Protein backbone atom coordinates (compact mmCIF):
# COMPACT_ATOMS: atom_id res chain seq x y z
CA UNK A 1 0.00 0.00 0.00
CA UNK A 2 1.37 3.39 -0.99
CA UNK A 3 0.83 6.60 0.91
CA UNK A 4 -0.90 9.30 -1.06
CA UNK A 5 0.71 12.58 -0.03
CA UNK A 6 -1.21 15.79 -0.59
CA UNK A 7 0.34 18.71 -2.47
CA UNK A 8 0.42 20.76 0.74
CA UNK A 9 2.24 18.01 2.52
CA UNK A 10 4.81 17.75 -0.26
CA UNK A 11 5.32 21.46 -0.21
CA UNK A 12 5.81 21.50 3.56
CA UNK A 13 8.45 18.83 3.29
CA UNK A 14 10.18 20.38 0.30
CA UNK A 15 12.14 22.55 2.69
CA UNK A 16 14.05 19.46 3.77
CA UNK A 17 15.38 18.79 0.27
CA UNK A 18 17.41 21.97 0.51
CA UNK A 19 18.56 21.37 4.08
CA UNK A 20 21.66 19.61 5.27
CA UNK A 21 21.52 15.91 6.18
CA UNK A 22 22.23 16.62 9.83
CA UNK A 23 19.39 19.15 9.88
CA UNK A 24 16.97 16.54 8.58
CA UNK A 25 18.13 14.11 11.23
CA UNK A 26 17.61 16.74 13.87
CA UNK A 27 14.15 17.44 12.52
CA UNK A 28 13.36 13.75 12.69
CA UNK A 29 14.46 13.60 16.28
CA UNK A 30 12.33 16.65 17.14
CA UNK A 31 9.33 15.19 15.31
CA UNK A 32 9.50 11.98 17.34
CA UNK A 33 10.02 13.91 20.53
CA UNK A 34 6.91 15.95 19.80
CA UNK A 35 4.91 12.80 19.10
CA UNK A 36 5.87 11.49 22.49
CA UNK A 37 5.56 14.60 24.61
CA UNK A 38 3.56 17.11 22.62
CA UNK A 39 4.76 20.08 20.63
CA UNK A 40 6.88 22.92 21.93
CA UNK A 41 6.81 26.14 19.82
CA UNK A 42 10.02 27.44 21.41
CA UNK A 43 12.01 24.74 19.65
CA UNK A 44 10.66 25.94 16.29
CA UNK A 45 11.82 29.46 17.05
CA UNK A 46 15.29 28.32 18.12
CA UNK A 47 15.75 26.18 15.02
CA UNK A 48 14.44 28.93 12.73
CA UNK A 49 16.97 31.43 14.16
CA UNK A 50 19.81 28.98 13.72
CA UNK A 51 18.90 28.17 10.12
CA UNK A 52 17.89 31.75 9.29
CA UNK A 53 14.50 30.72 7.89
CA UNK A 54 10.95 31.69 8.90
CA UNK A 55 9.44 29.89 11.89
CA UNK A 56 6.56 28.65 9.74
CA UNK A 57 8.91 26.81 7.47
CA UNK A 58 10.50 24.91 10.34
CA UNK A 59 7.12 24.16 11.83
CA UNK A 60 5.81 22.84 8.53
CA UNK A 61 8.90 20.70 8.10
CA UNK A 62 8.66 19.10 11.51
CA UNK A 63 4.90 18.66 11.35
CA UNK A 64 5.20 17.22 7.87
CA UNK A 65 7.60 14.63 9.22
CA UNK A 66 5.31 13.88 12.14
CA UNK A 67 2.42 13.36 9.75
CA UNK A 68 4.54 11.17 7.47
CA UNK A 69 5.54 9.01 10.43
CA UNK A 70 2.05 8.69 11.92
CA UNK A 71 0.42 7.92 8.57
CA UNK A 72 3.00 5.26 7.72
CA UNK A 73 2.71 3.71 11.18
CA UNK A 74 -1.06 3.89 11.07
CA UNK A 75 -1.20 1.78 7.92
CA UNK A 76 1.81 -0.34 8.90
CA UNK A 77 3.17 0.02 5.38
CA UNK A 78 6.09 -2.16 4.38
CA UNK A 79 9.62 -0.79 3.93
CA UNK A 80 9.35 -1.06 0.17
CA UNK A 81 6.07 0.83 0.13
CA UNK A 82 7.52 3.46 2.42
CA UNK A 83 10.44 4.02 0.04
CA UNK A 84 8.12 4.16 -2.97
CA UNK A 85 5.88 6.63 -1.17
CA UNK A 86 8.64 9.05 -0.21
CA UNK A 87 10.09 8.90 -3.73
CA UNK A 88 7.27 11.23 -4.72
CA UNK A 89 8.82 13.86 -2.44
CA UNK A 90 11.88 14.09 -4.66
CA UNK A 91 14.44 13.68 -1.88
CA UNK A 92 17.92 12.33 -2.42
CA UNK A 93 18.69 8.67 -1.82
CA UNK A 94 20.51 9.38 1.41
CA UNK A 95 17.61 11.35 2.85
CA UNK A 96 15.16 8.64 1.87
CA UNK A 97 17.28 6.07 3.69
CA UNK A 98 17.43 8.10 6.86
CA UNK A 99 13.65 8.62 6.78
CA UNK A 100 13.21 4.88 6.34
CA UNK A 101 15.46 4.24 9.34
CA UNK A 102 13.41 6.66 11.36
CA UNK A 103 10.23 4.86 10.36
CA UNK A 104 11.49 1.33 10.91
CA UNK A 105 13.01 2.11 14.29
CA UNK A 106 10.06 3.93 15.69
CA UNK A 107 6.92 2.54 14.07
CA UNK A 108 5.99 0.32 17.02
CA UNK A 109 6.43 3.12 19.47
CA UNK A 110 4.37 5.46 17.31
CA UNK A 111 1.62 2.83 17.06
CA UNK A 112 1.50 2.44 20.79
CA UNK A 113 1.21 6.20 21.19
CA UNK A 114 -1.57 6.29 18.62
CA UNK A 115 -3.37 3.39 20.25
CA UNK A 116 -3.82 5.45 23.39
CA UNK A 117 -5.65 8.19 21.57
CA UNK A 118 -9.02 6.72 20.86
CA UNK A 119 -9.99 4.11 23.41
CA UNK A 120 -11.34 6.20 26.17
CA UNK A 121 -13.17 3.37 27.80
CA UNK A 122 -11.82 2.21 31.13
CA UNK A 123 -9.70 -0.89 30.74
CA UNK A 124 -9.02 -3.67 33.19
CA UNK A 125 -5.81 -3.27 35.13
CA UNK A 126 -5.96 -5.51 38.16
CA UNK A 127 -8.23 -7.18 40.65
CA UNK A 128 -7.60 -7.74 44.32
CA UNK A 129 -9.83 -9.78 46.55
CA UNK A 130 -10.34 -10.60 50.18
CA UNK A 131 -12.55 -13.12 51.91
CA UNK A 132 -14.62 -11.64 54.71
CA UNK A 133 -17.14 -13.08 57.09
CA UNK A 134 -19.57 -10.64 58.62
CA UNK A 135 -19.93 -11.60 62.27
CA UNK A 136 -22.11 -8.91 63.77
CA UNK A 137 -23.57 -5.51 63.06
CA UNK A 138 -25.45 -2.84 64.92
CA UNK A 139 -28.80 -4.33 64.01
CA UNK A 140 -28.03 -8.01 64.46
CA UNK A 141 -25.42 -9.99 66.38
CA UNK A 142 -24.44 -13.59 65.76
CA UNK A 143 -24.14 -13.57 62.00
CA UNK A 144 -22.04 -15.70 59.73
CA UNK A 145 -22.25 -14.08 56.31
CA UNK A 146 -19.35 -14.98 54.04
CA UNK A 147 -18.56 -12.51 51.31
CA UNK A 148 -15.79 -11.66 48.93
CA UNK A 149 -14.66 -8.07 48.87
CA UNK A 150 -13.20 -7.09 45.52
CA UNK A 151 -11.11 -4.14 44.49
CA UNK A 152 -11.23 -3.56 40.76
CA UNK A 153 -8.51 -1.36 39.29
CA UNK A 154 -9.22 0.24 35.94
CA UNK A 155 -7.13 2.47 33.72
CA UNK A 156 -8.48 5.19 31.54
CA UNK A 157 -6.27 6.80 28.97
CA UNK A 158 -6.81 10.39 27.99
CA UNK A 159 -4.90 13.29 26.45
CA UNK A 160 -3.06 13.94 29.68
CA UNK A 161 -1.96 10.34 30.18
CA UNK A 162 -3.58 7.38 31.84
CA UNK A 163 -5.36 7.53 35.15
CA UNK A 164 -6.09 4.64 37.49
CA UNK A 165 -9.36 4.32 39.24
CA UNK A 166 -10.26 1.73 41.82
CA UNK A 167 -13.63 0.45 42.85
CA UNK A 168 -14.52 -1.50 45.95
CA UNK A 169 -17.17 -4.11 45.38
CA UNK A 170 -18.57 -7.05 47.20
CA UNK A 171 -20.16 -10.30 46.23
CA UNK A 172 -21.51 -13.45 47.83
CA UNK A 173 -20.05 -16.91 47.12
CA UNK A 174 -22.94 -17.92 44.88
CA UNK A 175 -22.69 -14.82 42.69
CA UNK A 176 -18.94 -15.31 42.55
CA UNK A 177 -19.35 -18.80 41.11
CA UNK A 178 -21.90 -17.45 38.66
CA UNK A 179 -19.47 -14.74 37.54
CA UNK A 180 -16.71 -17.28 37.04
CA UNK A 181 -18.83 -19.58 34.90
CA UNK A 182 -20.15 -16.67 32.82
CA UNK A 183 -16.68 -15.30 32.16
CA UNK A 184 -15.33 -18.73 31.36
CA UNK A 185 -17.98 -18.93 28.67
CA UNK A 186 -16.67 -15.61 27.39
CA UNK A 187 -13.14 -17.00 27.21
CA UNK A 188 -14.41 -20.07 25.41
CA UNK A 189 -16.15 -17.90 22.82
CA UNK A 190 -12.89 -16.66 21.35
CA UNK A 191 -11.78 -20.25 20.77
CA UNK A 192 -14.87 -21.33 18.86
CA UNK A 193 -14.50 -22.14 15.19
CA UNK A 194 -16.70 -19.16 14.37
CA UNK A 195 -14.40 -16.69 16.12
CA UNK A 196 -11.28 -18.40 14.85
CA UNK A 197 -12.51 -18.22 11.28
CA UNK A 198 -13.14 -14.49 11.56
CA UNK A 199 -9.79 -13.88 13.25
CA UNK A 200 -7.99 -15.88 10.59
CA UNK A 201 -9.66 -14.26 7.61
CA UNK A 202 -9.60 -10.63 8.64
CA UNK A 203 -5.94 -9.85 8.69
Amino acid at each position, binding site marked *: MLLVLSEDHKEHLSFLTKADGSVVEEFGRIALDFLRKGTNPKIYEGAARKLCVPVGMVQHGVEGLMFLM*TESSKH*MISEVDFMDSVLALGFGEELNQSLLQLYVQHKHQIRSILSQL*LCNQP*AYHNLEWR*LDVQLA*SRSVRHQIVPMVTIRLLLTRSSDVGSTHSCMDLQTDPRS*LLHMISTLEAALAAVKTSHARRI*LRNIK
Partner: protein
Amino acid sequence: MELSESVQKGLQLLADQSAVNHRSFQVLLDVSFRGLLSSRADPTVLDQPELKHMDRILLKQSHAALTTFILEAVKHNADKSTTSSCLEELTFSTDRIEIFFSAYQKHKNDIERLLSSMGRRPPHVNDVSWRLQYHMKNGQLDKINEPFYLISLNTENEGSSEDINFSCTTEQLQDLVSKLKDAAKSVEKASQM
Protein backbone atom coordinates in the same frame (compact mmCIF):
# COMPACT_ATOMS: atom_id res chain seq x y z
CA MET B 1 -31.63 -8.99 76.73
CA GLU B 2 -32.17 -5.66 78.38
CA LEU B 3 -35.50 -3.96 77.95
CA SER B 4 -36.33 -0.39 78.81
CA GLU B 5 -39.02 0.45 81.28
CA SER B 6 -41.53 1.54 78.67
CA VAL B 7 -41.05 -1.68 76.72
CA GLN B 8 -41.50 -3.70 79.88
CA LYS B 9 -44.65 -1.79 80.67
CA GLY B 10 -46.04 -2.29 77.18
CA LEU B 11 -45.38 -6.00 77.34
CA GLN B 12 -46.96 -6.31 80.77
CA LEU B 13 -50.08 -4.80 79.25
CA LEU B 14 -50.09 -7.55 76.67
CA ALA B 15 -49.69 -10.18 79.35
CA ASP B 16 -52.80 -8.94 81.10
CA GLN B 17 -55.58 -11.30 79.94
CA SER B 18 -58.34 -8.97 81.09
CA ALA B 19 -56.96 -6.00 79.08
CA VAL B 20 -56.03 -7.92 75.94
CA ASN B 21 -58.12 -10.93 75.10
CA HIS B 22 -56.83 -14.03 73.38
CA ARG B 23 -57.96 -13.01 69.88
CA SER B 24 -56.55 -9.50 70.17
CA PHE B 25 -53.24 -10.85 71.36
CA GLN B 26 -52.91 -13.06 68.34
CA VAL B 27 -53.93 -10.32 65.93
CA LEU B 28 -51.50 -7.86 67.49
CA LEU B 29 -48.71 -10.39 67.33
CA ASP B 30 -49.46 -11.04 63.68
CA VAL B 31 -49.64 -7.33 62.88
CA SER B 32 -46.30 -6.69 64.58
CA PHE B 33 -44.42 -9.31 62.60
CA ARG B 34 -46.06 -8.25 59.40
CA GLY B 35 -45.20 -4.62 60.03
CA LEU B 36 -41.55 -5.46 60.55
CA LEU B 37 -41.33 -7.47 57.37
CA SER B 38 -43.30 -5.26 55.02
CA SER B 39 -41.18 -2.93 52.97
CA ARG B 40 -43.44 0.06 53.53
CA ALA B 41 -44.78 1.40 56.80
CA ASP B 42 -48.54 1.01 56.89
CA PRO B 43 -50.26 3.66 59.02
CA THR B 44 -53.47 1.62 59.19
CA VAL B 45 -51.70 -1.40 60.64
CA LEU B 46 -53.56 -1.14 63.95
CA ASP B 47 -57.00 -0.57 62.41
CA GLN B 48 -58.12 -4.19 62.80
CA PRO B 49 -61.68 -4.99 63.95
CA GLU B 50 -60.26 -7.26 66.67
CA LEU B 51 -58.33 -4.32 68.13
CA LYS B 52 -61.16 -1.75 67.94
CA HIS B 53 -62.24 -2.26 71.55
CA MET B 54 -58.79 -1.50 72.99
CA ASP B 55 -57.64 1.88 74.19
CA ARG B 56 -55.64 3.44 71.32
CA ILE B 57 -52.79 4.66 73.52
CA LEU B 58 -52.40 1.35 75.30
CA LEU B 59 -52.61 -0.41 71.97
CA LYS B 60 -49.82 1.70 70.49
CA GLN B 61 -47.70 1.22 73.59
CA SER B 62 -48.01 -2.51 73.50
CA HIS B 63 -47.45 -2.63 69.74
CA ALA B 64 -44.25 -0.60 70.08
CA ALA B 65 -43.11 -2.77 72.98
CA LEU B 66 -43.82 -5.97 71.12
CA THR B 67 -41.95 -4.93 67.96
CA THR B 68 -38.99 -3.78 70.07
CA PHE B 69 -38.98 -7.08 71.89
CA ILE B 70 -39.04 -9.02 68.60
CA LEU B 71 -36.18 -6.98 67.18
CA GLU B 72 -34.09 -7.36 70.32
CA ALA B 73 -34.72 -11.09 70.40
CA VAL B 74 -33.66 -11.50 66.76
CA LYS B 75 -30.71 -9.19 67.24
CA HIS B 76 -29.36 -11.37 70.05
CA ASN B 77 -30.43 -14.60 68.41
CA ALA B 78 -32.50 -15.43 71.51
CA ASP B 79 -33.55 -19.04 71.93
CA LYS B 80 -36.66 -20.49 73.52
CA SER B 81 -35.41 -20.47 77.10
CA THR B 82 -34.26 -16.86 76.89
CA THR B 83 -37.49 -15.54 75.40
CA SER B 84 -39.57 -17.68 77.74
CA SER B 85 -37.84 -16.57 80.90
CA CYS B 86 -37.96 -12.98 79.76
CA LEU B 87 -41.69 -13.10 79.05
CA GLU B 88 -42.36 -15.07 82.22
CA GLU B 89 -40.81 -12.30 84.23
CA LEU B 90 -43.23 -9.94 82.55
CA THR B 91 -46.10 -12.15 83.80
CA PHE B 92 -46.93 -13.76 80.45
CA SER B 93 -48.89 -16.98 80.67
CA THR B 94 -47.35 -20.18 79.33
CA ASP B 95 -50.04 -20.20 76.70
CA ARG B 96 -49.11 -16.78 75.33
CA ILE B 97 -45.39 -17.52 75.53
CA GLU B 98 -46.02 -20.56 73.37
CA ILE B 99 -48.01 -18.52 70.84
CA PHE B 100 -45.30 -15.87 70.75
CA PHE B 101 -42.53 -18.35 70.30
CA SER B 102 -44.15 -20.21 67.43
CA ALA B 103 -44.69 -16.93 65.56
CA TYR B 104 -41.15 -15.83 66.42
CA GLN B 105 -39.69 -19.02 65.02
CA LYS B 106 -41.72 -18.70 61.87
CA HIS B 107 -40.48 -15.20 61.06
CA LYS B 108 -37.07 -15.15 62.72
CA ASN B 109 -35.03 -15.96 59.62
CA ASP B 110 -36.74 -13.34 57.50
CA ILE B 111 -36.25 -10.64 60.10
CA GLU B 112 -32.66 -11.68 60.61
CA ARG B 113 -31.99 -11.39 56.89
CA LEU B 114 -33.58 -7.97 56.85
CA LEU B 115 -31.56 -6.77 59.82
CA SER B 116 -28.28 -8.10 58.50
CA SER B 117 -28.82 -6.27 55.22
CA MET B 118 -28.94 -2.93 57.00
CA GLY B 119 -25.98 -0.60 57.08
CA ARG B 120 -23.45 0.63 54.56
CA ARG B 121 -21.46 -1.69 52.36
CA PRO B 122 -19.72 -1.56 48.99
CA PRO B 123 -21.86 -2.17 45.91
CA HIS B 124 -22.78 -5.81 45.53
CA VAL B 125 -21.98 -7.55 42.26
CA ASN B 126 -24.98 -9.61 41.17
CA ASP B 127 -24.27 -10.45 37.60
CA VAL B 128 -21.84 -9.95 34.77
CA SER B 129 -22.40 -9.68 31.05
CA TRP B 130 -19.83 -9.74 28.31
CA ARG B 131 -19.34 -9.07 24.64
CA LEU B 132 -16.53 -10.28 22.43
CA GLN B 133 -15.35 -7.81 19.82
CA TYR B 134 -12.69 -7.81 17.18
CA HIS B 135 -10.83 -4.51 17.05
CA MET B 136 -9.80 -4.07 13.42
CA LYS B 137 -8.95 -0.41 12.95
CA ASN B 138 -9.77 3.04 14.20
CA GLY B 139 -9.18 6.63 13.16
CA GLN B 140 -5.58 6.52 14.30
CA LEU B 141 -4.51 2.99 13.53
CA ASP B 142 -4.98 0.35 10.86
CA LYS B 143 -4.45 -3.38 11.20
CA ILE B 144 -4.89 -3.64 14.92
CA ASN B 145 -6.76 -6.95 14.60
CA GLU B 146 -7.07 -7.90 18.23
CA PRO B 147 -10.02 -9.51 19.93
CA PHE B 148 -11.11 -7.86 23.14
CA TYR B 149 -13.96 -8.08 25.61
CA LEU B 150 -16.40 -5.57 26.94
CA ILE B 151 -17.37 -6.55 30.45
CA SER B 152 -20.26 -5.12 32.38
CA LEU B 153 -20.57 -5.83 36.09
CA ASN B 154 -24.09 -5.41 37.33
CA THR B 155 -23.93 -4.04 40.85
CA GLU B 156 -26.53 -3.11 43.40
CA ASN B 157 -26.22 -0.67 46.24
CA GLU B 158 -28.97 0.33 48.63
CA GLY B 159 -31.66 -0.66 46.18
CA SER B 160 -30.27 1.11 43.11
CA SER B 161 -28.38 -0.76 40.45
CA GLU B 162 -25.42 0.41 38.44
CA ASP B 163 -23.30 -1.11 35.70
CA ILE B 164 -19.52 -0.96 35.78
CA ASN B 165 -18.20 -1.19 32.24
CA PHE B 166 -14.66 -1.85 31.19
CA SER B 167 -12.74 -3.46 28.37
CA CYS B 168 -10.07 -6.12 28.59
CA THR B 169 -7.95 -8.26 26.33
CA THR B 170 -8.17 -12.04 26.33
CA GLU B 171 -5.09 -12.24 28.56
CA GLN B 172 -6.54 -9.74 30.98
CA LEU B 173 -9.80 -11.66 31.14
CA GLN B 174 -7.86 -14.84 31.88
CA ASP B 175 -6.11 -12.98 34.67
CA LEU B 176 -9.43 -11.73 36.02
CA VAL B 177 -11.03 -15.18 35.93
CA SER B 178 -8.04 -16.86 37.57
CA LYS B 179 -8.16 -14.35 40.41
CA LEU B 180 -11.87 -14.89 40.90
CA LYS B 181 -11.23 -18.64 40.91
CA ASP B 182 -8.60 -18.20 43.62
CA ALA B 183 -11.19 -16.35 45.65
CA ALA B 184 -13.79 -19.06 45.08
CA LYS B 185 -11.30 -21.72 46.09
CA SER B 186 -10.50 -19.99 49.33
CA VAL B 187 -14.22 -19.60 50.07
CA GLU B 188 -14.62 -23.32 49.55
CA LYS B 189 -11.66 -24.12 51.77
CA ALA B 190 -12.96 -21.85 54.49
CA SER B 191 -16.38 -23.49 54.38
CA GLN B 192 -14.84 -26.91 55.02
CA MET B 193 -13.08 -25.85 58.21
